[in-house]
């Protein structure tokens, strides 16, 4: 009963290939995210979808295309893979919680990560 799951866990591929990483959450959350953890270990947000709608789109090459078929799934498709795409990619989800006044706080729950190695 994994809350946020990703497939595959490991992905080794050649430069120039196209690959997809899938993410599913069974928490009933409205928002899903993709993060990239680079070689310096920083976790950086790439995209976020709320109810299947793109709400965050950081400066990411357009070779990366997220797709959300429904609010429980957010897949990441990468075209023409490059060596620099090698990283760990984490999916996450969260639920909007409205607190007093206009304050909103959302705890993000992460998947186990997909380790991508481009050769």
């Amino acid at each position: 009963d994994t809350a946020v799951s990703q497939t595959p866990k490991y992905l080794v591929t050649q430069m120039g290939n196209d690959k997809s990483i899938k993410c599913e959450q069974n928490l009933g959350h409205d928002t899903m995210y993709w993060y990239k953890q680079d070689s310096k270990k920083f976790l950086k947000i790439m995209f976020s979808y709320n109810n299947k709608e793109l709400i965050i789109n950081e400066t990411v090459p357009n070779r990366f295309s997220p797709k959300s078929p429904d609010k429980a799934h957010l897949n990441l498709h990468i075209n023409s893979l490059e060596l620099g795409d090698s990283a760990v990619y984490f999916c996450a989800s969260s639920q909007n919680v409205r607190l007093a006044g206009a304050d909103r706080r959302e705890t993000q729950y992460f998947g186990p990560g997909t380790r991508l190695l481009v050769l």
Partner: protein
Amino acid sequence: DQQVKQNSPSLSVQEGRISILNCDYTNSMFDYFLWYKKYPAEGPTFLISISSIKDKNEDGRFTVFLNKSAKHLSLHIVPSQPGDSAVYFCAATLHGSARQLTFGSGTQLTVLP
């Protein structure tokens, strides 16, 4: 431009003692801070958070302190246990952008038995 910095990549502490993990930030617009814990081959898991209207938040063995004037927060774990050995990430969000987490680079905590 690292807006959230964890300057100690690693920390070793004896079991039973206090672990203090530090985090500095540069953006004064950050108003909510979180600590995540990460074991190898797993995703980060939420540990504790603090709003900028507070200077301390406690949850069991974990306490987070926020010093807004110094733009500094710290996570105290007492007593430390071997199971606490993990990478700890500090993260921050801007007011009105609760979903956009900015992470530090993490500190590897090792608790020695």
